């Protein structure tokens, strides 16, 4: 990974490269977490006066964009000196948390409740299921952010 062209680019294209990519990484995370937080809280039941259908249609594309920015810039940061992170325990918490967050998101979008929420009101049972997955989502992304930040302090 370190020997990849991405790794070379990160190391050899100017002294500000890492700082700028790092900045974009933070902005990507802020975009993802800031938007998904509102949606997950709504799924849990906070802010019910806003219809879920209105919220989800505006938030999902923003969160997806944030994730893609964070993921691509993150690969660049990692490739800069990938060998330095071998054995960093926070990395081993962060990546499974991201994977679980993505799996959870994929599961949510495949539930009957999610597929139907633009067309009809959801039943109590459906709302409960989505609330649990919303909570799990928050837990995943918070874990990813906390462990991600801690990588630098190991």
């Amino acid at each position, binding site marked *: 990974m370190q020997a990849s062209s991405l790794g070379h680019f990160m*190391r*050899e294209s100017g*002294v500000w490269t890492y700082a700028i990519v790092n900045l974009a990484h933070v902005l990507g995370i802020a975009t993802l977490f800031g938007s998904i937080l509102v949606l997950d809280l709504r799924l849990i039941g906070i802010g019910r006066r806003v219809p879920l259908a209105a919220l989800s249609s505006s938030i999902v594309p923003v969160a997806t964009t944030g994730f893609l920015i964070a993921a691509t810039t993150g690969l660049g940061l990692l490739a800069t*000196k990938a060998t330095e992170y071998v054995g960093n325990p926070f990395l081993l918490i962060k990546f499974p948390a991201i994977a679980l967050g993505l799996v959870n998101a994929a599961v949510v979008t495949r539930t009957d409740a999610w597929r139907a929420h633009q067309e009809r009101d959801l039943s109590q049972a459906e709302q409960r299921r989505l609330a649990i997955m919303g909570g799990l989502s928050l837990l995943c992304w918070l874990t990813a952010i906390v462990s991600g930040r801690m990588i630098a*302090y*190991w």
Partner: protein
Amino acid sequence: MKKLLLVAAAAVALTTPRIVSAHHGWGGYLDAEFEVSGTVETPVSLAGPHATMTIKGADGHQWLLTLAPPPRTSAAGLKDGMLPAGTKVTAHGHRHRDSNRFEVKTERLTVDGKTYNVYPDRT
């Protein structure tokens, strides 16, 4: 809502300085001034959050010299790939708090009478 914001602000204010000082600040390093001399093993690298290089210390240990962030290190005159292996250097700064880690957060690097002051605002 206002109350919630206040609580959040207080929590951030209480925890931030401690977290920030853990590694990338100076809190992870001893307060005492520290100096190590040796010969360069890995030349200056301006990749990553901090510029780095390694030297073989006179004490036989391999020391990691953590310099300033790349733009600042470069401004002090240390460019990527400078100081070939074998160059005699003296690093002045602060040693890592963990005595098992041979790492110096370097403020000044002296090479053949020339001093590269990567943290000119620190003594």
